[in-house]
């Protein structure tokens, strides 16, 4: 178990290292660009040259990368050009807001999707199954910018129940959180429901569910005692993958509702060519993605006794000849 986690941790580090290199190369390989972005379009060539020389940009690329990495490791992530603030003070604040938005969405979405998926999958082809499946496919198919407009139309402009923007300028407000959460839940629930349903259908047609029935179990008991845990393996693994999904999808929702979160930050940074902020945001995103992968693997092992931590049973019959 410890061995497993340690190994995954090393993979995590290697991934981050690789990504950091790509990010750095993409943003800072062309030093003229960096100077333009930092000093603005109206700086003269001399000014740029001076700035580049001052900041060690004429050093060899690899050396610059390593120096950047060292600074990154000790927490010196540079200063945001647009916000005029340290990147390390900016990111936590915005990330915290997004974590709240994503966390609440996930907390609403997961039980809802699991419940719907189980209900649909326990009797394949029933009216309930078809209804839920239709709902799932329909909601997944609607892009978020469309559902955001649509839902705003109903709840904000027609019913006047909720505010149309969520900047939270005067402190935290629950009411402002409802719309973004609603849009995210609507977009994400369908897929997880379908996953759960498929998994449940498979389990319900398995031999051991039949055995359980033939033991004299009631249908409800078969579902609760025998089917549920086995059917949860796949969806729970998928839930973990929703964290990176949310990180990517909050961009649309946050920008639409003017919510001050990680998505808005990344969006603004990209628009403003805010080099150091983009670098910081990307690295944070990588950590989030890779570490949720680790948690997802752990959950899989925990739910499925057939998988153990230490023996990756790779039955690779060497296809090479």
């Amino acid at each position, binding site marked *: 178990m410890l061995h497993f986690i340690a190994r995954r941790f090393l993979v995590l580090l290697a991934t981050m290292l690789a990504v950091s290199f790509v990010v750095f190369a993409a943003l800072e390989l062309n030093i003229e660009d960096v100077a333009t972005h930092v000093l603005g379009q109206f700086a003269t060539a001399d000014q740029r040259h001076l700035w580049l020389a001052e900041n060690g940009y004429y050093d060899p690329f690899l050396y610059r990368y390593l120096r950047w990495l060292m600074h990154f490791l000790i927490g010196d992530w540079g200063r945001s050009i647009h916000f005029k603030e340290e990147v390390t003070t900016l990111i936590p604040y915005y990330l915290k807001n997004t974590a709240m938005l994503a966390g609440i969405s996930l907390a609403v979405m997961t039980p809802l999707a699991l419940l719907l998926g189980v209900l649909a999958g326990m009797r394949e082809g029933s009216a309930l199954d078809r209804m839920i499946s239709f709902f799932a496919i329909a909601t997944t198919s609607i892009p978020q910018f469309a559902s955001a407009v649509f839902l705003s139309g109903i709840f904000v402009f027609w019913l006047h129940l909720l505010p149309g923007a969520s900047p939270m300028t005067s402190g935290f407000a629950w009411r402002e959180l409802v719309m973004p959460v609603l849009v995210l839940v609507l977009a994400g629930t369908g897929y997880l429901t379908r996953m759960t349903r498929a998994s449940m259908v498979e389990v319900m047609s398995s031999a051991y569910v039949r055995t359980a029935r033939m033991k004299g179990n009631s249908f409800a008991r078969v579902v609760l005692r025998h089917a549920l845990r086995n059917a949860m393996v796949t969806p729970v693994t998928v839930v973990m993958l929703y964290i990176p999904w949310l990180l990517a999808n909050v961009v649309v929702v946050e920008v639409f509702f003017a919510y001050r979160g990680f998505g808005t930050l990344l969006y603004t940074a990209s628009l403003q060519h805010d080099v150091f902020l983009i670098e910081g945001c990307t690295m944070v995103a990588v950590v989030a993605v890779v570490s949720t992968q680790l948690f997802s693997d752990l959950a899989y092992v925990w739910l499925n006794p057939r998988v153990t931590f230490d*023996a990756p049973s790779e039955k690779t019959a060497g296809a090479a000849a």
Partner: protein
Amino acid sequence: MKGEALSPLLRVRDLSVALPQGADRRFAVEGASFDLAGGEILCVVGESGSGKSVLSSTIMGAAPAGLRVLSGSILFRGNDIVRMGEAKLRRLRGNQIAMVFQEPMAALNPAVKVGEQIEEVFTLHSRLVPRERRQRVRALLADTRLADPDRIAKSYPHQLSGGQCQRVVIAMALAMQPALLIADEPTSALDVTTQAQVLKLMRELRDEHGHAVLFITHDFGVVAEVADRVAVMQAGRIVEIGDKRAVLDAPRHPYTQKLIAAVPRAEPRPSSALRPDAEPSLEIVHLAKTYRVGGQKVTALKDASFALDKGRTLGIVGESGSGKSTLARVAIRLTAADRGSVRVAAVDLAKLGGKALARARRKMQMIFQDPYGSLNPRHSIGSILTRAGKLGGKPGSAARESAIELLHLVGLKPEAFARKPHEFSGGQRQRIGIARALAMNPEVVFADECVSALDVSVQKQVLRLIADLQARLDLTLVFITHDLRVAAQVSDFIAVMRQGEIVEFGAAEEVLKRPHHPYTRELIAAAPGRDWTPPALETLET
């Protein structure tokens, strides 16, 4: 309760189960009537699709989805199961009627310890307190001759072998001492030695507890081993029912006669005269393969050596995991060997590479077990065979011609050329698989369990076709099978494998009649129904 003493435990009368519209026949079970008395074992035997499994689940009050009981009655202790409500059925299931299934591993919940799965039966049907329940579970596991029942009870299904799992399933079924046990192909997924043990166990438990057994099987060897009475099903009807001896030794219905005639004889075929001039077609020298699973080394093949003359058949027999398939895979270099060499027609494959290897490899072809999975569903039979012919080195038009010829050779109509695999039955697909192997014009053909997925009557036809083609084309054949009867029928030589090792090799007659190695003896002793020799019947050819 006078009626109960008179009427048998189970009385099925005129039972018909309708198939959904659009099926290939109207009834899954049609007009079935039979009685089953306490303590009796009735074997229901039939080929796939004969309705025997539908019959068994209908008796449990759980006809498969889409099927419904049209008429008739199933009286269990005088109560009609067909007209019973779900709540009442639940009290019966696992309590008075219990079931044992085909795939023991799959029949157990993978996420629950097996002890708890057995315990659940007591939770459902008794008022025992937890401590008593656990004691009973332990006693049941010991009853099914499982060593170390405490450890077994705490295990998950995947930690047990197939045989152990089936014992657990049997223990679970017998928990409440049911009056009727329904066993649906309970040993078909097990190895032959395990099967022998489980069959013995089922007979002994019947003797101890006196429950009736409805035993569904397709295997006449198993029937001969366990049955008191036999019912033969064909296309949903019970065509013959009677005492075991009567049905097995003097079948009256033509279908029963046909089935029994198709059962391969355990007699080895007389070995044809050796040709002194014959050159070895296939030589395997010190072949070895080790897999690494997790941190452990698994020896799949240990130093296998043999030579096989042109036109001869070697039967490789052994249980699952004995390395027989690995031997074939390594021989044709689907998997690289660790050590050893393979010579085909005196050419050493290990010394070849690139194109020369590709060419030489075509000299060895494989017929696979699963006739469904081994044909590309998107290609027509014609294109499958033509492509194989082209790979075998023929130009396009010649490949096409030979494809049509091959269809004829394996007994398919020329119309098959344009059709896709899904339009054919299992037996026909296996013929196509054979034709494809032959299209490359091979020297050696490996047949890996190529008839084990087929019904006995189809199996007989395919075996005959293979023998016929072999004689005509002078093919060298390596025939891998777990079934000693089949091996006896087709082989000149037999190699017995166990744990990656060839433990005995010799002429078929020698090995089967005068086995030297104790394991060979054990295998032969375990073959079900070996005391029964199918009667010589004059049947209409199919």
